């Protein structure tokens, strides 16, 4: 016997196309390799008795004795039970065909089609029922992820993230998408109940890449991006601004006759401003602030990984670097990450291992301070007749044109007001797996998450309306967080004849604690120190600190039973105890049950060529939500300070009402689904219907102010989400030369409040932008928008009617809904919805020889976006610049308009949340398009498994009716119930990328 080299090519039995990435192992050894992008492999064997094992996800495994051959070509057959890919579920894995619950899965390589810098972005549109919306396009912002609608009002709506078994990771976006092996979304109660009290918003399980025994893989992935504004809204030119300015003063006479007579409206005369106007009264400057602030920028991302292993141990090391610029001047994100994993077969019965992941990010943000005169606002409100800087080097500012509200020019703010957010996150895990018998094992893990977040802020001494009143303001806040979990669970798996049983039984302790402090100082003698030496500030604002913790203690179990692979049963239960709840209600039980029927395994369907897979599933169960703040059941006496005797005096007051009966919010969910495979599973269909009813809603319910307090967390209220989800996976064409496949994800959700508060009254949850903007009302969806209806403007012919409302022709005309002759709170009504009726993602992938092309189209329909920006750029003039829409304001010649006649701010101005602000937020977005080319895999002596270059574009088109930058928007309003509301949003970029994947 002597070593010899076997070569061969692996192809698909159906169309003869090469199969890259197929695992080839010499049976009984740890020796292995995988095929390159041409489907070729090369492996050394000891002798002719060697047997090669070829395996690949979705294909039947093949074992081939080598004999005296040196070339072994293999064709692999698509596994007619290709469902047999393994799916990760809570505390274990299951064959897809044995799955009884609703679980969406996506493999890591699929995620890499897009140049995403975080997990949520790469998940967007992939899995039916998972709605990912970008909150802000500023670098470093976390997208908002909702699974199957909005099931809560005061508790968090974010799904539970489990990364490599670490439950409840607070920032899943710390992961570089390159590091992800697979991602599973648990949607129904059968799947999520194993996470009991934390499962109600759905669970996202992320498994990262680890080393594999017997292989070594070195990979380098790199991409660079050019990021450019997807659209520009345009601002008023200097001449247009002057025209609006003068009109505003002219019309003051109409709207404030007395004030005009009294000489209240004295406009600036260009002749008095030789620094801004030439001798002919023409503006010297014409600054386009939008262009000055939003500029194309660059991003790059690198990941280098080495993964491999010997007979008894496997390892992986990966390092990553991300540098992402923001469209807005001076905003960016940099991130360094490193990860190490180790898995060892210590003995025949003991396996131990662990991992550590370190992430260090620095986010620089300049768009903070929403609502105030911040950068994105001043882009539209800075006056175009001003320069960025005068020839003498001094900054232009709105105050240079007297009578302006006084914001600074946005370039200056971006330079002199910064917020940096350094973060360090460490995720670690240690585990052992003890095999008592081939059927029974015990897994133990101790995992932790450490977070160090800091926020450094400085706003300059001269920034009018921001920090000039304070003569500069610096603040530093820091948060240290520690989470640990200790979990032990038994796994039992046994097949007896036609019966298969697998069982899980475990217990868990979890605790999260954090400490934070913050300090602010003002009154600096120079901007030099910024936040770096806060001691220089002469005025110290009272510092603050706090520490909090919560804990969970849980017992969980699951039983799977299958008979003849046809009838499947799953029971899951978790008994959770939580510190957050009242002394009377610490523990609760969350059970679920599911059944599934693999109809295709029945005799009558066995040889059916059309219907090659049919599984019908149903599940029902209960999960909980505990994501409210700590200590909500306590009656606190808080401290604060009151000014007496010229200094701060600490006082004590009753700060929370407390509710010792506080208990879990829980969701009962019914899911009925089917998995269908047609034509040898060339078409896979997944269909789910669900109905989720959340009860005992943890509501920060208002109580009468006469108690001295405003609200108390109570378990009152109920909300229902019903929906359908359809997933289609189709290999339309599959030949040796050309393949085309289509993937469709569709979901529709209907949300309805069933019960609310003690009396069922409407609740106005805020954000209260000039009055109420959102309403919670029984029978309506969460996120329902509230305000007036704007009919247009009063016409000249309606002067008498307008007078009854104290209005003049040219004023806004709102509908007097209750017909009482005045416009007030009683004329507010439902004017929109902020969650979509349905969304659809269609992606197509083509493969032609060495070229691959794919694109994703995302469609979101039946939703509104509130363009609250109109409040300040369209509804008022002469104290700031305006949006271009004021050029369509009411004039005697242009009466058919929704924009009031231009007049000076002081001459009366109407502004209120109304249906003119509430716009159609539906859109069709070209999410991603990518064209790749796989190069020949051999360059000289170097043999690559994969060598692919690609070019891609994201947000490559957008079809919408929205008047702002992008209908998928949210700014500054924080609360989770008011999605899709913006006040000067950060524009959405269009991104062009060039990338390279190398694996060898």
């Amino acid at each position, binding site marked *: 016997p002597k070593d010899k080299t076997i070569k061969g090519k692996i192809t698909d039995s159906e169309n003869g196309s090469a199969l890259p990435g197929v695992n080839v192992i010499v049976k009984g050894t740890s020796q292995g390799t995988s095929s390159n992008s041409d489907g070729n492999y090369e492996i050394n064997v000891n002798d002719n008795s060697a047997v090669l094992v070829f395996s690949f996800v979705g294909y039947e495994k093949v074992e081939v004795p080598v004999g005296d051959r040196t070339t072994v070509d293999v064709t692999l057959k698509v596994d007619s039970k290709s469902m047999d890919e393994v799916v990760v579920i809570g505390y274990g894995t299951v064959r897809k065909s044995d799955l009884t619950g609703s679980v969406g899965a996506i493999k890591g390589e699929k995620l890499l089609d897009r140049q995403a810098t975080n997990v949520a972005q790469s998940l967007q549109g992939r899995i039916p029922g998972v709605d990912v919306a970008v909150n802000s396009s500023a670098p470093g912002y976390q997208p908002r992820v909702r699974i199957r609608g909005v099931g809560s009002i005061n508790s968090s709506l974010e799904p539970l993230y489990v990364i490599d078994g670490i439950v409840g990771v607070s920032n899943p976006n710390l992961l570089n998408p390159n590091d992800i092996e697979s991602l599973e979304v648990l949607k129904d109660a059968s799947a999520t109940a194993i996470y009991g009290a934390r499962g109600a918003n759905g669970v996202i399980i992320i498994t990262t890449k680890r080393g594999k025994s017997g292989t070594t893989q070195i990979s380098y992935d790199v991409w660079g991006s050019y990021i450019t504004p997807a659209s520009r809204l345009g601002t008023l030119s200097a001449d247009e601004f002057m025209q609006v300015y003068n009109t505003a003063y002219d019309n003051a006479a109409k709207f404030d006759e007395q004030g005009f007579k009294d000489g209240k409206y004295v406009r600036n005369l260009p002749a008095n401003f030789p620094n801004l106007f030439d001798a002919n009264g023409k503006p010297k400057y014409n600054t386009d602030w939008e262009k000055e602030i939003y500029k194309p920028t660059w991003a790059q991302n690198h990941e280098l990984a080495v993964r491999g292993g010997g007979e008894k141990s496997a390892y992986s090391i990966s390092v990553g670097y991300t540098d992402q610029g923001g469209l807005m001047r001076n905003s960016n994100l940099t991130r360094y990450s490193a990860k190490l994993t180790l898995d060892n077969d210590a003995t025949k019965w003991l396996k131990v291992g662990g991992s550590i992941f370190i992430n260090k990010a620095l986010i620089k943000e300049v768009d903070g301070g929403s609502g105030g005169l911040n950068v994105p606002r001043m882009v539209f409100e800075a006056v175009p007749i001003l320069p960025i800087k005068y020839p003498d080097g001094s900054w232009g500012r709105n105050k240079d044109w007297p009578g302006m509200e006084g914001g600074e020019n946005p370039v200056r703010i971006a330079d002199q007001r910064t917020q940096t957010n350094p973060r360090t996150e460490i995720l670690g895990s240690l585990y052992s797996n003890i095999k008592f018998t081939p059927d029974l094992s015990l897994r133990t893990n101790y995992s932790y998450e450490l977070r160090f977040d800091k926020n450094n802020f400085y706003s300059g001494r001269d920034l009018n309306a921001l920090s000039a009143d304070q003569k500069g303001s610096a603040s530093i806040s820091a948060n240290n967080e520690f989470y640990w979990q200790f979990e032990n669970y038994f796994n039992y798996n046994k097949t007896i004849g036609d019966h298969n049983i697998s069982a899980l039984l475990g217990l868990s302790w979890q605790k999260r604690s954090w400490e934070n402090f913050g300090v602010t100082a003002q*009154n600096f003698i120079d901007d030099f120190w910024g936040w770096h030496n806060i001691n220089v500030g002469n005025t110290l604002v009272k510092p603050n600190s706090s520490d909090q913790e919560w804990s969970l203690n849980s017992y969980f179990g699951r039983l799977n039973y299958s008979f003849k692979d046809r009838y499947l049963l799953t029971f899951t239960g978790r008994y959770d105890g939580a510190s957050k709840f009242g002394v009377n209600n610490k523990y609760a039980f969350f059970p679920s049950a599911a059944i599934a029927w693999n109809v295709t395994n029945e005799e009558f369907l066995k040889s059916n060529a059309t219907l090659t897979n049919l599984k019908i599933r149903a599940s029902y169960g209960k999960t909980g939500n505990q994501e409210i703040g700590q200590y909500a059941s306590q009656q606190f006496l808080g401290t604060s300070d009151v000014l007496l005797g010229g200094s701060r005096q600490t*006082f004590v007051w009753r700060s929370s009402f407390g509710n010792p009966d506080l208990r879990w919010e829980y969701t009962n969910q019914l899911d009925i689904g089917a998995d269908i495979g047609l034509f040898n599973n060339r078409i896979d269909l997944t269909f789910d219907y669900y109905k989720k009813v959340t009860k005992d809603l943890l509501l920060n319910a208002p109580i009468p102010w006469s108690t001295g307090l405003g609200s108390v967390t109570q378990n009152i209220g109920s909300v229902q989400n019903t929906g359908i989800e359809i997933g289609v996976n189709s290999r339309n064409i599959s030949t040796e030369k050309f393949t085309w496949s289509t993937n469709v994800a569709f979901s529709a959700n209907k949300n309805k409040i069933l019960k609310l*508060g003690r009396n069922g009254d409407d609740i106005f949850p805020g954000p209260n932008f000039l009055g109420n903007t959102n309403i919670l009302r029984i029978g309506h969806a969460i996120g329902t928008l509230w305000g007036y209806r704007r009919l247009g403007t009063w016409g000249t012919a309606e002067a008498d009617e307008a007078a009854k409302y104290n209005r003049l022709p040219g004023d806004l005309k709102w509908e007097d809904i209750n017909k009482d002759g005045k416009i007030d709170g009683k004329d507010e009504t439902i004017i929109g919805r902020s969650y979509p009726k349905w969304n659809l993602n269609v992606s197509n992938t083509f493969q032609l020889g060495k070229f691959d092309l794919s694109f994703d189209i995302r469609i979101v329909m039946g939703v509104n976006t509130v363009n609250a920006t109109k409040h300040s750029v369209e509804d008022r003039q002469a104290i700031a610049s305006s949006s271009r829409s004021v050029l369509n304001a009411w004039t005697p010649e242009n009466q058919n308009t929704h924009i009031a006649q231009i007049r000076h701010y002081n001459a009366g101005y109407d502004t209120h949340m109304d249906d003119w602000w509430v716009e159609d937020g539906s859109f069709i977005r070209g999410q991603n398009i990518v064209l790749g080319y796989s190069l020949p895999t051999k360059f000289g002596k170097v043999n690559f498994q994969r060598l692919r270059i690609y070019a891609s574009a994201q947000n490559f088109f957008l079809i919408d009716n929205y008047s702002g930058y992008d209908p998928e928007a949210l700014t500054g309003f924080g609360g989770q119930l008011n999605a899709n509301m913006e006040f000067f949003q950060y524009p959405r970029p269009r991104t062009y990328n060039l990338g390279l994947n190398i694996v060898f």
Partner: protein
Amino acid sequence: CNDFLTENPTGQLTTGSSVSSPEIARAFVDGSYSQITTFNNGGGGWGGNNASLVEFMTGKADGNSQTEAFKFFNLEYDARAFYVDGWWSGMYSGIARANLAIQKIGEISTLPAATKTNMIAEARAMRALYYFQLVRMFGDVPKITTLITSLDDVQTPRSPVKEIYDEIIIPDLLEAEKSTLPWRDTAGRMSMGAIKALLAHVYLTYAGFPVSAGVPAYTESAKRSKEIIDNGTYSLFAEYTDMIVPANRNQTEFIFQVQHEKDIRNNGLTPVTLPAFTGIASYSDEYGGLLPRKEFVESFEKGDKRAKEKQFFYTYYKGHPSDYPAGDPRRDSLNLGGYYIYKWFDKQAIDNDAKANINYTIYRYAEILLMYAEASNRVEGKPNAQAQKALNDVRKRAQLPAVTTTNVDEFEKAVWAERYFELCYEGKMWFDMIRTRKVRNDLTKQWDNFVGHKTVYGKTFAEKNLLLPIPQRETDNNKSLEQNVGF
């Protein structure tokens, strides 16, 4: 595993925590002062301030449109209007803190008896102040004198105005009056002077509408104001502008004030009363949130010093150097095109650092003089010499001739008018209208009945305008409340 799940909050006391130090007793009492900030803070909209509500109601004030002043002077306000929430919740929050203080101080056994009495006097006087504000704004209100701890007890119904006076406001103040608090407290806490001033004002109001207790109440009122006058602790400032000098806070004429300190909590009413966007101040925001009506200012008696430039009002100022380029004539003098209130014009803040360092006054000596004049006139059926002197001391400062009438009605109207002029925009005028049900007409200078009075905005007061609506949110969450008629 119960210990593992037990919450041990480290940063906050709970109602069950046992506390005993004298300092923490002080902290409970100081809590009852904390909501005094409601008087000139908060409010809705850009440039809104709670203080503006009762001025907008009079029809003698204006604001910018974002303050929604127009809703009030057009008499179009409803239960969801700005400010109503702020006053209701602010006062009840203060009451809850006073209730907590009264209960907790009672439990702390280490305090000397006299300290305990004085501390409880402070808390009860503050509670009376909060309730006094509530009954005058909303009429019948929920009567709450203890800490509410169970969710079954949160829906308290309204109690009649008279019951609130008889069972809370008056007994609280009478009890506080028995304390040994000093006549003046320059830290801004309750003093004997403030307690007597409150009693004088409470009884004066109790004598009028809606309780109409008449002469016995006038008698009690006059007794307190006379005590303050006779005591001699307080006196009038020589100049009106002495009141906007930070050094004079809590001194001389001032009896009880909301405290401000420039680097801790500056007075937000200063920028609110600046003319909007004129560029006269170092403030980033010049709100134009509360301004006087020209008709009112021009209805002052001829020669009244208070109506002269930069006494109570101003019509021009210099443009701020950061707004006007050198050489622009507006940098020296800028016509503001109308009257603006000068009562919170902290010159230093306006010219330099945008941090107003002057207090907001709740009671000052001039009002004591006028209360004595009014109450004693009613008790005796004619003004006595001290009453005449009291009124004329106020007029003398305004460089106005003495009032000499001895006719009870004429003298009373003279006092009422004097209150308008002297105390305008200090949160008094509206409540005078409500308790007297008379309104001085700025155009005719006659006294109209409240119901039927037509304001300079062309709007007519009706019966329903005597009370503000209870906040919608409150009636939504407390089903035992009945809304005031007409809302």
